């Protein structure tokens, strides 16, 4: 079980929760479980969400493991110059 923190706009589509608990071992599973628990999140996930694991931002690596007790933060996927 990992605790996931959502940013403002996401928490609104997740029933107003800014923190949710998810049983997931990697980013892939995290997204799948989140979409199951909160269908409103699915379009956001499709559009792209970045995941910060203990402060390091991952944008694309679904296989990245979520270590137990890690701090998991969801963030908007950003544009760069």
């Amino acid at each position, binding site marked *: 079980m990992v605790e996931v923190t959502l940013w403002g*706009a996401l928490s609104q589509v997740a029933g107003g929760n800014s923190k949710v608990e998810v049983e997931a071992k990697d980013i892939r599973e995290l997204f799948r479980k989140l979409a199951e628990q909160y269908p409103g999140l699915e379009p956001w996930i499709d559009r792209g969400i970045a995941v910060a694991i203990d402060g390091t*931002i*991952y944008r694309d690596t679904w296989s990245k493991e979520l270590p137990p007790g890690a701090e998991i933060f969801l963030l*908007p996927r950003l544009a*760069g110059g």
Partner: protein
Amino acid sequence: MNFDPRFSGRKFASVGTRPIRPDGVDKVTGRARYGADFNMAGQLVGRVLRSPHAHAIIRKIDTSKAEALSGVKAVITAADLPDLTDGDAAMYDILDNCMARTKALYDGHAVAAVAAIDARTARQALKLIEVDYEVLPHVTDVDEAMAHHAPLINDTIFTEGLEQKPAKASNVTKRSQFGHGDVHQGFGAADFIVERSFKTEQTHQGYIEPHACVANVSTDGTADLWVCTQGHFVYRQHCAQLLGMEASKLRVTSSEIGGGFGGKTHVWAEPVALALSRKAGRPVKLVMTRDEVFRASGPTSATSIDVKIGARKDGTITAAEATLRYSAGPYAGSWAEIGAMTAFACYKLDNVKTVGYEVLVNRPKTAAYRAPSAPMAAFAVESAVDELAKEIGIDPVEFRIRNAAQEGTRSSYGPVYGPIGIGPTLEAVKNHAHMKAPLKANQGRGMACGFWFNFGGQTCVDLNIGMDGSVSLAVGTVDVGGSRASLSLVAAEELGIDYTQLKAVVADTSSLGYNDMTDGSRGTFSSSMATISAARNAIKILRERAAQMWDISVDDVVWEQGHAVAKGEKHGNLGKLSLKEIAAKSGTTGGPIAGHSELVADGAGVSFATHICDVEVDPETGSTRVIRYTVVQDAGKAVHPTYVEGQYQGGAAQGIGWALNEEYIYGKDGRLQNAGFLDYRIPVCSDLPMIDTQILEIPNPNHPYGVRGVGETSIVPPLAAIANAVSNAAGVRMTHIPMSPPRILAAIEAEREG
């Protein structure tokens, strides 16, 4: 593939040196080919007709007269680029921006295009296209667009991110919010509070090379596109999707790119050129004029930002809050969101809240510009931080050091930081000789901090070893400022060979797997990771071949300084085999030797910079001269330090232009008044002093060499650093960027009159 990206702390032989770039000679002899330097036999000249109105319904377009003109081979409108985006809203916006469908949404919006045998005929044909417009009220100012009475740009847009779905359509496409703690409580604990509103005007990336491409669509459904772009793979995806092609049948070759800075990250003219070529059955060359570049491509957001920061007498910030409104052009964007994330990223805050609003205006579609959205937020926040330090009576550097984020700090955008460089940049600034340089009358000093995320992303590299032992490196990230040099250094480092034994090229989309673009400061970070991985894969094969040549087990062969070395007592008499020797025998030991890498380079390290700036302000004219400038930035690891310095200097110079003179000026008619380098005033050589740089290296734990990415952060602090310097020199707080002479003089006069 088991590639370990973790920082290893190795000693370097090649990385960190400063050799001449591999593409250099072509660039100093005029041989390098940029977007407009390529031609195809039988090519036509493409030109685009653009709306003179800021906001208008397109009732009808009559192209018959243009089509009838001798020498015209194709005329297209939106009907020739049908909507194939299948509900993909972002792609639909790109399509509509390439060719207006029902409404022209800004001055310069493309409405039709022609391909003709020469430029003169194409120009004449444009004049013969009749467009029946119904002109609508327009809005170009970000604050006015948010007002209730503002003309609605898209009546299907309802603000996203509100607690309740709004009943009315709005020009605000999205609200976003970040932060933690309780700012109300935090302000309650403050002894001093600074609260101010700031504005920044819209700027353009200002690359010297206009957008240019040559498109050649064949009747068999295949196509070639030669184009200046920051991401040819992304351009291929977009063009294929918009034209209904299979991506693999469209080969995109990236030319040398004459600057991008974010402005060449999405398509404008390319789908139009392809559609023209498809219709005409001939190659089409489409080159934007400078006027078109300004009117129809590029710009960053104009912003309006409110900041409130509170601190205790001891200099501890207790709460920070900001509301950020960013213009997005006429299409939805996420620009304020990035501003809201980056605004307070430099600080350790218990109570912080930022709210962003994305605002539609009748201006060109906002594109990324170097650390997009961060400079404006930093301008507002760092101005307020400076003012607060002054009110408390603490030195502004000390004040920032006291409140700087560090490893373990919860960032204002959410996650907890790993090892970061804000503290070290501030300490370096505190001890920098620049801080002690004497100031004369009418001169002032300012400093400011900045933050940028840096990205990774999908990346491929092919490393091929020739039979003569020379190495070719094919990368998929466009080289915008020297990355072929830095990647060659990385490959040389891994292989243990000399830099001159390598040649790096940017491969076309048919020669390499998909690559994300060169954006988000990812070029060297991502492609170096893939290069390291590819080189290590090649080394594995080199070791196998050496083992074969020696007839021993590969487990007994190690790679040291460009040689296979047989290890262990029993192989003591085997000596070593150079890469060259192994390559010479490759034909009989298993064929060509290569290393490939396809990976997602994730885990880019955030970066911080602190800048110091001295200016002199003429109190009678409001004219500002930058007299001294210093950049201190964390690079993680500087692979080619000279080009890292170049990125620092270039970002600072762009920031100086933005701070002092660059802005989009719209008339009351909603038309852009200064679509040229004469009146869109980017800094010239005589405007700037030497720009001193100091590279700090706080390794990124998620890259084998510690690389973070260096391209963007340098544009984040200058707006604020210069605003603080000007405010100190002129004795009045400047809150509107650019601080053009009329604005400075007006502020001085207002202050004088009290």
